[in-house]
Structures are given as C-alpha cells and as structure tokens.
C-alpha cells in the first residue's frame, strides 16, 4: 500500500513536471520566433490568438495533420526509432532537477521536496542520458539514405563527442567544490546571503561556467554551433528526410534539450531555486528557478539572432585546443584552492570583517 502511494506520488510529480516543461518548451518556440522577429526588425507570428499566444497550438495541429512521408530506400525500423530516441533521451533528464525547496503542498498538508527523484548520482544520470541522445541524430542521418542527412549525422556525432568532454570536465569543478553528485544538495550549498552570494558562478566557478555554457550550446546543436543542420550546406542536415510528426519530435527534442541544459546551468551555477526570501516563502523558489531558466533561454535566442555559424574545422579546433585545456586548468585551479583552503579563508574573512557575506 505504501509502495503504491509512493508510485502514485512520483507519477503525479512526473505528470506535473512533464506538463509544465512541455508548455514552457512550446512557448519557448513562440518566444524564439517573436524575439528573432524583433531582432531582425519585423513582427514575427502575432495573428493566432492575442499577440500570437495560441501559435504553438496551431503549430501542433499542423504537425499532426501533415502527410508523413517515408523515403523509399530508408532503413524503416531505424528511421522510426531515431526520433523516439532523441525525444525520450531529452525528456528523461527532467526527473532529477530540483524545481524548488521543501514546500507544504496545500490540501493534502504534506511537506515534500520539489524534486521527483533524488538520488546519489543525479549529475551522472544527466550526463549519461544526454550522451545516449546522440544516437537519435546519428541514426536519423544514417537511416534516411541521403547524403546530406548522413553528413549531418556524422558531423553531429563528432561534434557531440568532442564537446561532451569539455562539458564533463567543466562540471568537475562544481563537483569538487560541493563534494557531492546530488543536485539537491548542490543547490542547498549555494544558498548564501539573500540566496545570491553563494552562487557557484560568482566567486568559485566563473571559468567553469563559461566553458559549460559554450559546450552546452554545442551539445544542443544551436547557433553558433549548429553545423549538423547547416542550411547553406546540408539542406537541413540530419532531419532532411523527416516530415510531419517525426520532424516535430526532433524539433521538440532540440528545445527540450535547450531547456534541460538551462536547468542544469541554473542548478549548478546560479544556485537553482535559491534567491531572496526563499526561507520565508518556499514557493518563491519555484519562480526563481524558472526565472533563471528563462534567462538562459533568452540568451540562447539572443545568440541565434546575432552570431554567425562556425566552420567545421574551427568548431573542432575550438573544442579540442581551447575548451578542453581551459577546463583542465579549471579543475587544477579548483582543486588547488580547495586543498589550500583559500576559498574558506576568503569566506571567513568577508564574514567577520564586513558581516555581509552569508
């Protein structure tokens, strides 16, 4: 009975998180089109509903009712499997992110932590699931039996393998700092004064944050690293042959990936749900969390509107010759500071001399 209750609670949590994230992803797409419109001096979609508010719904209906074309000489099974892998791997990471602190649920009067599955190796779980997501793109490129698709698939697997390394190394700094792989504890450690001063970004991992952000943008195949779908060279890259709902699944996977990457950045570097007055009103934490995530999403859109695309050799040399060495340097630096106790000393100094630091 207790087992069933637990399963029911977790299922409810998954449902709510899924619903919230999907809605926000749908509106990210709309926001991207509108913000890009403003950046480029035009309006963007604004006809469906007030200010274009119902546009995602219209897009969804269009995707469902479009004809689903399967290339004649494609490898059928893999062709169907690829979008599924991409979407499932993107969505699966949602369960480990802490959306908020311990809160009182109204009506049932129970105090729960706003995280669906809290376990020992949350960060490694995220990395593992993300690394499986590569197959979606690689297999899509291969199974379409199209040269452009194959080139896109190959490029993306090469790119994602290369940048995964820098991404993982950048995260090691945070792990060294906090001494745990559990995302909830990592957030708790970043509380600080007013929930702001303890953020890893500000005074511990600025270099790690920059490396993570760059590698994460490359990992999600977004501008300026969107080589796998470079329109000018490869038509549409790995999803050239995909149409209707299968294309929509790839589209969805890309935006969910953006979203989860932003959530991870928020959790690890921006203090997650930490912010002013969270201790007094725990529900505020949820708003802080999503506010920070939206900030990252806006940053993504901003980059897309303003930066040109890399060339492939530039992409590779940037990843291997700059990001990876800098990430290793960051690890050594963090380890040295941690070992010598310099960070603790600074914290103690600021606390005693100014009485300001949390």
């Amino acid at each position, binding site marked *: 009975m207790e*087992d069933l209750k637990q399963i029911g609670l977790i299922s409810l949590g998954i449902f709510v998180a899924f619903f919230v994230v999907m809605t926000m992803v749908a509106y990210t797409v709309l926001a991207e089109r509108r913000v890009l419109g403003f950046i480029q001096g035009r309006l963007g979609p604004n006809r469906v509903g007030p200010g274009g508010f119902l546009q995602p719904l219209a897009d969804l209906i269009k995707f469902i009712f479009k004809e689903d074309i399967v290339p004649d000489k494609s*490898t059928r*099974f*893999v062709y169907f*499997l690829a979008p599924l892998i991409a979407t499932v791997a993107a969505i699966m990471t949602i369960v480990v992110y802490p959306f908020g602190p311990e809160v009182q649920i109204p009506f049932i009067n129970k105090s729960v932590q706003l995280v669906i599955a809290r*376990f*020992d*190796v949350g960060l*490694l*779980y995220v*990395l*593992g*699931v*993300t*690394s*499986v997501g*590569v*197959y979606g793109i*690689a*297999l899509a*490129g*291969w199974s379409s039996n199209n040269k452009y698709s*194959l080139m896109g*698939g*190959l490029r993306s*697997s*090469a790119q*994602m*393998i290369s940048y*995964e390394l820098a991404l993982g190394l950048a995260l090691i700094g945070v792990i060294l700092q906090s001494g745990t*792989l559990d995302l909830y504890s990592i957030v708790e450690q970043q509380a600080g004064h007013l929930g702001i001063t303890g953020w890893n970004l500000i005074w511990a991992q600025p270099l790690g944050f920059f490396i993570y952000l760059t590698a994460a943008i490359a990992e999600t195949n977004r501008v300026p690293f969107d080589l796998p779908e470079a329109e000018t060279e490869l038509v549409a890259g790995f999803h050239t042959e995909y149409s209707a709902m299968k294309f929509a699944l790839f589209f969805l996977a890309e935006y969910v990936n953006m979203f989860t990457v932003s959530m991870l950045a928020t959790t690890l570097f921006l203090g997650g749900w930490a912010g002013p007055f969270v201790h007094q009103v725990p529900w505020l934490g949820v708003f802080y969390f999503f506010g920070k995530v939206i900030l990252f999403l806006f940053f993504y859109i901003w980059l897309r509107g303003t930066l040109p695309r890399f060339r492939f050799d530039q992409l590779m040399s940037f990843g291997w010759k700059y990001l990876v060495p800098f990430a290793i340097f960051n690890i050594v630096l963090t380890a040295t500071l941690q070992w010598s106790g310099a960070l603790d000393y600074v914290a103690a100094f600021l606390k005693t001399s100014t009485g300001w630091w949390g």
Partner: protein
Amino acid sequence: MTGILFILFAGLAIGCATSMVVQRNPLYSAISLIGVFISLACLYVMLAAPFIAAVQVIVYAGAIMVLVVFVIMLLNVEEEERRPLRLRFLIPVAVILAAIFFAETAFIIYFVQASPVTLSRNVSDVGLTSSIGGGLFTTYLLPFEITSILLLMAIVGAMTLARSGGLLSSRAAVVPGDQVFSKELLDRREPGDLSAVTTHTTKEAAQLLGVDKGTK
C-alpha cells in the same frame, strides 16, 4: 515489485544480446549491444550500485558505442551475406557447453536456496560513489595509475601509427626546383636511413613530404 523489474531488464538484456549475435546488419548489432548495456545499467541500479550504472551508460553506451556506430556509418558497411557454415563440429560442442552451463545454474540456485546461511545485510556500499573513489585513490592507487598509463600508451601508439608520413610539420613550405631528401626525413619508420631521394618538381617534393594539401 523488484522481482518484476528484474525479470523485465534481465529479459531485455538477454533478448538484446541474442539479437546482437543473430543480426546480419552490423548497425542493428550495434543498436542491440546498446540495448544490452542500458539494461545492464538498470540491473546495476537495482543492485544498489548507482555509480557503476551511471558509468556504464556514460562510458559504454554513450562513448564507445557512439564511436562504433560512427565508424559503421562512415565506412557504410553493408549487410553481411549468409555464408555456408564452416567448422560444423562446433555445433555439438556448443550444445554440450550450454547444457553444462544450465546444469551449473540449476545447481547453484538449488544449493543457495537450500543453504542455511542467510545474507547478513541487504544494502552494501560497494557501488556508491564515495566508496569507489576512496578505493581507487587509496588501496588501489597503483593499479589505477597503471591503467591510466596504459590508456596513454594506446593514444600515443595510435598517433604514431596514424602520422607515419614524415618529420616535417604541416606548415613546412616547399622550395621550387630540384631537391634531395634523406629517406629518414620522409619516413619516420626508417630512422637512420640517409640514402638520398631526389625530386625534380615542386609537386613531386610536396607529395613526398606530405604537404600538398589542396594542390591536386
């Protein structure tokens, strides 16, 4: 609950493993192998070893198999043809070995259930991150370091084999006209060989030195 999950993932692992051997298309075999790795990771989670499970997915499913799939895609390997079976005597040997294996399993299951000793504790700390890290950097430090040196040697070896062209850097320019090189300079697999190699044109020299990218 745990029993159902175990049967699910164990069945999945065995099914994928069988499919990996049976498939003739190398890419399908690779996908099946990924399935095996992921179901094994799920089994590790159930054995209270989350760290090993995560590493299993990251390293095997996420890195090594990506490279395998990458190579299959790059070489465009076709489906293997069904050949007449050679080495027919292996079939009865396999049957006998399978029979022995099943007998062994049955024996173990029977005697473990019959034995009076019960497990003292259900939860172990073997698979936890801290215990693995502690073990790697204290008790097993030397084997750990030796493994990393082994990996380094593999990388260096691959580099040496791949770049056996010449000793010149890729930025070296080619001087026009007749030129004489020593063989040692052109092929680093023959150190100490100073016999002369003469070239008459710039293009020939560039080809010998391996710096003629884009001049074809």
